[in-house]
């Protein structure tokens, strides 16, 4: 399994963020874990210039239902990022939604590469990394 440099977790729920961080640490699959509490904070992180350009986490795990800017609204803003930046990022929707409409909506958005059910566990995370990074 390939080791990643950065994973960005976008979720408003502190226990969920804590759990996801534990799962990532257990799998020891990345150098850095970043977190954002909602879509707006995440977009700010992605559009703020850092040392040599913009932040490009290898993997974004995105929740749908969040206050301020939810997962769908985040994707609208994400789509306006440069093709160069987006090419380096894999966005995976991580949700408790059982609504088939949410799944088909996610499938209709080119930049969303996967739609995964919560809770995140080591097997699911390993599958995501092997599917999208090997």
């Amino acid at each position: 399994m390939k080791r990643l440099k950065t994973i960005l977790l976008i979720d408003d729920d502190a226990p969920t963020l804590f759990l996801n961080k534990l799962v990532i640490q257990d799998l020891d699959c990345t150098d850095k874990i970043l977190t954002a509490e909602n879509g707006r904070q995440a977009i700010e992180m992605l559009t703020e210039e850092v040392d040599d350009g913009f932040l490009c986490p290898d993997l974004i795990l995105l929740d749908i239902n969040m206050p301020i800017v939810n997962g769908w609204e985040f994707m609208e803003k994400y789509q306006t990022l440069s093709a160069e930046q987006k090419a380096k990022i894999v966005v995976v929707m991580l949700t408790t939604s059982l609504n088939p409409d949410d799944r088909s909506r996610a499938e209709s958005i080119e930049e969303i590469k996967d739609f995964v059910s919560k809770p995140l566990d080591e097997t699911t995370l390993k599958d995501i990394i092997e599917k999208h990074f090997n």
Partner: protein
Amino acid sequence: MPNTNQKLLLRRLDDAERKIRVLEDMIENSSRELYIANQDLKHKNKDLEQIIYIVSHDLQEPLTTLYAFLGRLAEKHNQELSSQGQEYLDYANISAERMKALIKGLLDHSRIGAKRIIESIDFNKVVKDVMLDLDSIIHESKAKISIEDLPTLKAYTIESRLLFQNLIHNAIKFAKPGHTPVIRIGAEEMQTHVSFYVEDEGIGIEEDYHEKVFKIFQQLSRKPGGVGIGLAHCKKIALMHEGDLWIDNTYTEGCRFCFTFSKGL
């Protein structure tokens, strides 16, 4: 010049026309009020379903996380727990499991009819398909199911299947202990509706509970895998078909569920 009789008749005609106009106005007003009340009811029903959906969805999120932490506790810290601590963990898991099933039940209930498709359905095929879905349970219980010739009528396919599935499954689940489930299914064409029945020779339901069993989360016994929402689903489906669902209180050999579907959908 009209004579006196003619004048009288003309006046009566005028009076009658005025009364008709008043009545027409009253009918128009009543129709308008009925239309507004109906629209209001539709909105309220939609709101309610939306609320159920949102509540059940939002409840699911923390529950999923709770579940995951309980799992981690059992998996990674089991050795550190005393036997009493492990017992607490087991009970916490059982409760979380039940809450998950309750939430799923609510979600399923709110979704019934959300994507309804009406089409002409052969109910012989509906029941045959349901029996295929329930094949392993039917086989395991050795249930004897006899089906009369059923009609073809316009109905909502997925929901109709769900209704039969719940009733047949219940009839098997609530067979008399030590007895093979016996189930009979039939239908009768009425003037405006078709009346179906699913009857069994099982443990039956006391008359006091004949209404209550159709309410959400009402169970007469705690059977594994059930939360008491199947019959509420069935009632909703019958109402969707402009019909109703009830338990026949004249039947005493077990339980007979009767439901009607409108022929005019």
